[in-house]
């Protein structure tokens, strides 16, 4: 009992990093982490010991996040990304203009692309793990990754997304 508490606690920094990148808003990120922790703590008996705790937690977080988006989209005044960029570390001085551009572009990236880009690029999950977390086929992960990266690149260079030559 005690060990699962510790295992969960160990994952909090990673959950926060991902939530922060996903929501772009510090308070919303910690709300998301809190909801995720509450849900996983109350369902900890459902976690199989031989399975990957991180994947289980990220799956829960994805579900919580998607549910919240669904609710917010029907309610007026959804919470925007933090004004321009919320510096995650408070180390705003260290951020280059490029990082600011990235944060701004990430904000405008559709959610399903943002999730895949972050799980692969930031969390460094395997593609099959990402598929499991998001509950989609690996093929979908790959196409979102490809399109999301192109879209992010276009957003960062301030150009409209261009059609990519597919081999």
């Amino acid at each position, binding site marked *: 009992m005690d060990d699962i508490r510790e295992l969960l606690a160990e994952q909090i920094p990673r959950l926060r990093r991902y939530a922060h990148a996903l929501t772009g808003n510090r308070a919303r990120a910690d709300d998301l982490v809190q909801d995720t922790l509450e849900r996983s703590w*109350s369902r900890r008996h459902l976690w199989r010991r031989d399975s990957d705790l991180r994947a289980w937690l990220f799956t829960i977080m994805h579900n919580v996040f998607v549910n919240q988006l669904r609710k917010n989209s029907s309610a007026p005044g959804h919470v925007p990304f933090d004004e321009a960029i919320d510096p995650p570390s408070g180390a705003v001085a260290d951020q280059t203009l490029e990082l600011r551009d990235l944060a701004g572009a990430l904000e405008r990236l559709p959610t399903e692309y943002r999730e895949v880009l972050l799980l692969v690029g930031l969390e460094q999950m395997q*593609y099959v793990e990402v598929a499991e977390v998001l509950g989609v086929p690996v093929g979908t992960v*790959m196409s979102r*990754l490809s399109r999301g990266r192109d879209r992010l690149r276009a957003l960062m260079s301030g150009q409209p997304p261009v059609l*990519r030559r597919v081999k």
Partner: protein
Amino acid sequence: MNHGKPIEENDLQAYVDSRLDPARRAEVEAYVAAHPDQAERVGAFGQQNAMLRSLFDPVLEQPVPERLARVLAASPDRRLWRYSAMAASLAVAVMVGWILRGEQQTSLPQGPSFAERAAVAHVVYTPEVLHPVEVGVAQEDHLIKWLSKRLGEPVKAPDLDKLGYHLIGGRLLPGREKPAAQFMYEDARGQRLTLYVSTDVTGNQETAFRYAREDGVSVFYWVDGPLGYALSAEAPREQLLAVAETVYRDLNR
């Protein structure tokens, strides 16, 4: 595995993420070298990965906000659920006890339910933040006198300081026929254990330690003279056994 096959979009993505075996990687490298537009793409994608980490990795170093840590310290909903589950199993135990009445004469006629009562009391009171105990350790003398009086037997709170558990206080609880007492201890990390003491035991003898586990709560219980004891914690059996032995020794000092 894909060697010699044409380079596809998935290969380029896997190249960016360093997910290719060396042979395929070399093939993709050769392809990219011959296609400047693709070279630019994968270069930009690699940059994206690196920048995402520079931008958000600092979050890993931030202290975890108190409200998040608290979620794992106690969860009322889950405790309530557990409590009702335990109450249900208690009801079953009582029924079984009723059916088996007169079948066995042991010093713990209500054997499992004694441990279960202790486990229920543990689960109900340990998550309390403001009122975990009725009488705090500051009034330890008063607490001991009061509980001894109500139980009709001298009780004492064992000293578990050397195990890192400090007494935080105790409370009076209803037992099956007679009142019971609960002492609560806490370690530096906030983990709590409780010692449930009751005279709801027949005979005046000693039993060995017995062990029960109720939905994550480990309970060691035994009878020592006129009193029955149950030590509960959300801890593995071996860890709790060591504490139980210390409790037993300290009570018999």
